[in-house]
Structures are given as structure tokens and as C-alpha cells.
């Protein structure tokens, strides 16, 4: 048998072990990226092949956190795609302002740069005190870093540029303290966000929200899982609630058209279809 076919068998067995032993189901993740990550993890563990990871996954209790961290490589930045944040500010936030209080859910928050970007915008629009923000991920290491709100200053130049392009009203420096190569987001913003473990694959609705931000997360899911998660978002949103996805994501399934209607296609902002739309 060709080595490539054997490797595919190993990856299948690894995913099966992860599911049966720990309940984390990656079997409906898109194959190509998942394979890249599993091979990177194999190399990082200095294993000769994927199968060598399986005993560790089964018997070493502490290994799960590392696996989840490596399978959900967190890469995010502040105000990535500035036009999207500009559109959220101009289109969505005025609608949120009409509620006495509102909830926002960022699904797949990774290390938190994006949810802090959102919090900064809410602060500038005078809405932060009315908002409760939930930011969830399956990667506990990333969640801890997100909660700490500490990031390397080498990224600041780009973030400052993004912030301005996104319609930032003051200076990004008004929202952090820099020290020894790192900057920390102000506590006022940090304490407005609840960081929690939530698995889009298996967990359900946990509260009713007015806006869901889930950018570049569904790109890692196959069509079946993408549909499941979009249904979950639909069920979590209030009537006419907003959903913001990544700018290059596609909603190809027919059911999706019935679930959401575009508000701004370019920015991939939708609102919930249904009752009154």
C-alpha cells in the first residue's frame, strides 16, 4: 500500500480515538487543513508517524489540551479586514443601540484580538455598558491568553493602521498599556467579556444574542458541519439578529439561504431570516 494511503488510515484512527476517548469530534472538519495540522503536530511531537500519537492520546490525560491547541491553531489580529469593522460600526451598532441591553457572541475567539476590537468599537459608540459579550473557543490555552488580554507590541503598527481604517475615533493607544514588549488591553474592556469553553461541533445554544461574530471558523468545517453550526447560530439569534462571517466564506447550501439574508455582502454581514424579515 502507498505511504499516503496508510497515512490517511492513521489520520482516521487518530480522529476516531480523539472522539471516542475524549468526545471531541473533528471528523467533519475539512480534510486538507486538518491533515496539515495533524502532520505538524506529529512533527512537533517528534513522532515518525501519526499512529504514534494515538497511545499518548488514549493514555496521557494531559495531552488533550495540547491536541486541541494544535488542531485549532489560533491566528487572529485586531481589526482584521477594516471595512468589515467599519460596516459593523455603521450598520449593526446603531441597531444594537435600540436595545436597552444586548448580548454579543464571538464563536471561535482564539486569542481574543478580534473580540477586543469589537469591545473598543462599542466603547467608542457609547454602547459598551449596555453590552454583554461572550467569547468562546475549544482551545483552553487560547482562551486563557484571550482572557489575559496581553499581546506582543510588534503587531501594534499593523493594528493601529487597521484601527484607523476601520473608522477608529481616537487612538488605539487609549485602550492598552504597553510594557516590555507587550501591551495589555485595559481592564474596563476585559471585564466586559466572558470567555468560555464551547464546542461548535457538539454544544448547543447557551443564550439569546443580538450579534454573532464568527469569522474564518467555518472555513475549517465540511458542508455538513457548516450547516449544523449555521442552524445553531440561527437558533441563538434574536429576531433579525446579526451574523458576521469571514469575507471569503461561502454559504452554498440551500437551507442557508432560508436561514439568513444579506445585510452587507462585501462585509459578509447577514441578519436572521424568519419571523419578520
Amino acid at each position, binding site marked *: 500500500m502507498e505511504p499516503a494511503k496508510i497515512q490517511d488510515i492513521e489520520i482516521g484512527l487518530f480522529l476516531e480515538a480523539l472522539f471516542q476517548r475524549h468526545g471531541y469530534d473533528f471528523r467533519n472538519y475539512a480534510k486538507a*487543513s486538518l*491533515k496539515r495540522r495533524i502532520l505538524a503536530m506529529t512533527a512537533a511531537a517528534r513522532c515518525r508517524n501519526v499512529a504514534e500519537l494515538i497511545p499518548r492520546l488514549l493514555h496521557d490525560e494531559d495531552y488533550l489540551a495540547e491536541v486541541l491547541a494544535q488542531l485549532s491553531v489560533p491566528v487572529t489580529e485586531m481589526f482584521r479586514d477594516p471595512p468589515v469593522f467599519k460596516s459593523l460600526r455603521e450598520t449593526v451598532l446603531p441597531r444594537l443601540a435600540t436595545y436597552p441591553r444586548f448580548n454579543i457572541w464571538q464563536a471561535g475567539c482564539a486569542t481574543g484580538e478580534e473580540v477586543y476590537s469589537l469591545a473598543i468599537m462599542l466603547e467608542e459608540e457609547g454602547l459598551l455598558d449596555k453590552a454583554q459579550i461572550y467569547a468562546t473557543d475549544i482551545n483552553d490555552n487560547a482562551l486563557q491568553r484571550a482572557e489575559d488580554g496581553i499581546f506582543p507590541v510588534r503587531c501594534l503598527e499593523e493594528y493601529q493602521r487597521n484601527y484607523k481604517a476601520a473608522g477608529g475615533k481616537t487612538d488605539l493607544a487609549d485602550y492598552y498599556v504597553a510594557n516590555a514588549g507587550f501591551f495589555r488591553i485595559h481592564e474596563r474592556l476585559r471585564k466586559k467579556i466572558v470567555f468560555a469553553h464551547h464546542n461548535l461541533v457538539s454544544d448547543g445554544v447557551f443564550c439569546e444574542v443580538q450579534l454573532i461574530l464568527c469569522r474564518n471558523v467555518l*472555513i475549517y468545517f465540511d458542508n455538513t458541519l457548516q450547516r449544523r453550526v449555521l442552524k445553531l447560530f440561527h437558533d441563538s439569534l434574536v429576531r433579525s439578529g446579526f451574523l458576521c462571517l469571514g469575507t471569503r*466564506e*461561502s454559504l452554498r447550501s440551500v437551507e442557508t439561504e432560508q436561514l439568513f439574508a444579506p445585510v452587507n455582502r462585501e462585509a459578509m454581514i447577514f441578519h436572521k431570516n424568519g419571523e419578520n424579515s
Partner: protein
Amino acid sequence: MSLLIPSSQSNQQKLGERRVEAAVIGCSAGGLDALKIVLEAFPADLGIAVIVVAHTAPDGDHLLPSLLDNICNLPVSEAREREAVLPGQVYVAPPNYHLLIEPQRSFALSVDERVCFVRPAIDVLFRSAADVYHQHLIGIILTGANDDGAQGLKAVKDAGGYTLVQDPRDAYADAMPKAAIATAAVDRVLPLDALAEAVLRFCLSPAKS
């Protein structure tokens, strides 16, 4: 695995001919001019998918597909997530995403870390294409000032694919072709204006049995 041609493909190419499904092309510095020369020489009935990764600024307007569409006999568009990879089309990776091929021959995107300091990375596309297309794939490395693509091209070769590299002496920036050649996984090193013909000739040549 059978090497017989499935009936759905037989109208494209005759039995006994090599069933090439796709060509992947990677380029960086000087890439636009090089791409124009290669792509404009492809005929409208090329019959394979052409998938391009060109290193571009992450926040730039993505004009590359429309620029190339103007000069190419084949339709050129940005590769869209979950879209089927179709023969006779040229696809360009969107800026700031890695582009991958799923086993069912559709596009996938990722925002995983940069590889060789770039996203999209040529290595990422080439490796995933090699996984899916095996010997039915052509990999091409053009001009560029870094070594992205070398490992990807090696993966194409290891999977049984055909590998072409622009002659470094002929390239705007020679680091990328040189790095690819250094992997010793290159079938032919050719000047820019001979690459399209080499692709055509390979598509039409009889497969080794």
C-alpha cells in the same frame, strides 16, 4: 487504484493519453509579468484546471484575477471556498488566505500561520494538490525572491506529478526557482516562453504504463 480513465473524463482526453487534471503555479516577485506570459499561451481547450498562488499584499485590492482574465483564453477567477475545481478554468488564491484542495476536488481556505512568511503559501497549495491529484498534476515554479514552493514542488514530484521550473537566468528574481531546483525534484528547467508548451506537450503525451 485503476489508471483507466473514468467515462466522465473520456470526452476530454482519449484512452492511453495521460489524464492530467490540474496544474498548480507559484510565483512571487515579478510574478505578474511571468504569469501573463505563461497563461496567455494556454489555448481555450486546455482541459485542465490551472491554480495560481501569487504572493500579494494581504490588504491590497485583489485585481490579479481580472488583470489575468484580460489576457488569458481561459476564464480567470478568484478561487472560492467550497467551489468545485473545474477543468478549463484558471483560479487565483485570494489574498491573506492559504488555498488548499479538498479530496472531493473543491477549494478550501485557511488562515493558519504564514508559511515561509507568506499567506497564501505556494507550499500549502502544492502539498494539498499533490495529496489529491497524485500523478495527474503539474507543478510550476516561476520567479520569486524567497524559497516558498520548493518543498511543495518536491511533494508534487514525490506524488508522481510532473514538475517545471522557470530558468533562474531568465527570472526577474532567481531565488525561488533556484530553491526549487535545489530540491532535485524538477523534471524540466525552461525559459518562461517555453513553459506553456511543455504543459501542453505533457498533457498530450502517452502515460507510462
